[in-house]
């Protein structure tokens, strides 16, 4: 059986790991490569790095990060953050990234998804979507959830799939940082509507939240950051409980 995946997410700025609560104030949580190595040893199935470096040197710093991770880590990883063009993606692929995650650039220029899928294959293209509810509608947001767009979340995800997205990373900005659980209603709607893997993100605070998201939505993977970084949930314990709930995991 194909396993459900547990994915720690590392937010990286200037080569160091940070995690924002609701993406606003940032705390330093260490060296990304060391953290990544620890997670792979604990049984993480995959890693996501979101690079929020905002300098002109960003591509170079991301490439260096990806190379160090690929040299030392024996599980797959995705890199995201400010990827705007084919050349960015090409540099990251050649540095050893398994997938790239695109967010704002895809919303602003949807044909970028077609181009990336054609150049590198759909398996390389993860579309990250930050969603927030406004007047009972799920609306795509940009800039770390601060800037609402005119796109409705489900409609955008279906368009991304048809253009060549290989996977969807869906973050509920209403749930992110609350530790009250994933947005299972929206995740189920999205997961039922697409034929590509969906990664749930935003709201993990307890082991039960992971059990719930897999049981209620059947998503392929669940991503979290702070609960893992601060040791509030240990991956071996989490997987043992998932397994005891008859959820397929890699142990």
């Amino acid at each position: 059986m194909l396993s459900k995946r547990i994915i720690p997410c590392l937010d990286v700025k200037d080569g160091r790991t940070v995690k924002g609560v609701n993406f606003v104030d940032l705390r330093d949580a260490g060296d990304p490569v060391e953290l990544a190595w620890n997670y792979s040893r604990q049984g993480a199935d995959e890693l996501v790095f979101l690079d929020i470096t905002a300098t002109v040197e960003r591509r170079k710093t991301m490439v260096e990060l990806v190379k160090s991770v690929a040299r030392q880590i024996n599980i797959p990883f995705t890199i995201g953050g400010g990827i705007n063009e084919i050349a960015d993606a090409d540099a990251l692929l050649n540095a050893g990234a398994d997938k790239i995650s695109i967010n704002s650039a895809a919303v602003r220029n949807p044909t970028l998804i077609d181009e990336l899928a054609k150049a590198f294959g759909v398996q390389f293209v993860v579309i990250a979507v930050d969603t927030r509810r406004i007047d009972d509608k799920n609306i795509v947001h940009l800039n770390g959830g601060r800037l609402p767009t005119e796109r409705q979340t489900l409609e955008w995800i279906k368009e991304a799939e048809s253009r060549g997205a290989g996977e969807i990373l869906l973050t509920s900005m209403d749930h992110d940082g609350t530790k009250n659980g994933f947005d299972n209603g929206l995740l189920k709607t999205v997961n039922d509507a697409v034929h590509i893997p969906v990664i749930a993100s935003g709201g993990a605070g307890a082991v039960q939240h992971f059990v719930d998201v897999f049981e209620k939505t059947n998503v392929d993977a669940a991503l979290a950051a702070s609960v893992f970084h601060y040791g509030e949930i240990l991956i071996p314990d989490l997987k043992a409980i998932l397994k005891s709930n008859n959820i397929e995991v890699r142990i």
Partner: protein
Amino acid sequence: MTGIILYGAGNIFSLTAALERLSIPYGFINSQEDFKKFDRYIIPGVGHAGAAMDKLEKTGLVPAIKELKKPTLGICVGMQLLTSYSEEGNSDLLNIFPIKTLRFQDSADYKVPHTGWNQVYPEKDNPLFKNIPSGSHFYFVHSYFIEYDKTYTLLSANYSTEFSASIWHDNFYGVQFHPEKSGVYGETLLTNFSKL
């Protein structure tokens, strides 16, 4: 020493990084002359099987590959190239294994690409899987699969249908998953291959 056949189909940084971590010496094969420098070979590959075959043909290495007598491991699309045909691009391939590469049917329960960790089960005894328990997980990412075949399937896996996670015929081996991304057991497999 392991020779990696270079033909421009995808990035091999992660593969060479894994070999370095495991202290497995390797070099590259760009021409027919290079084959004799090595005692085993890896055919890497990601992306489109038809496009990969076109690139491989342009290197002029195809006749030499078909004649190889030393252990040869195809990884992912590099494995699919060893089969006779792929539905991807309706392409004729190396035909070292007279079996086909087909596309998964997608459905709500079986999304395509088949992405993630799936279990593999040995169909035969082979030193490539020494110290790797039956039912171990390996990392897959692919939309096309090699059909299950009683003669050639070395490891089976299941994703909407039973398929070949690994194939074996004489000195030729293939794995559909990515050993360089498959944790400790993936590394064990690469080490086993280096000792065949």
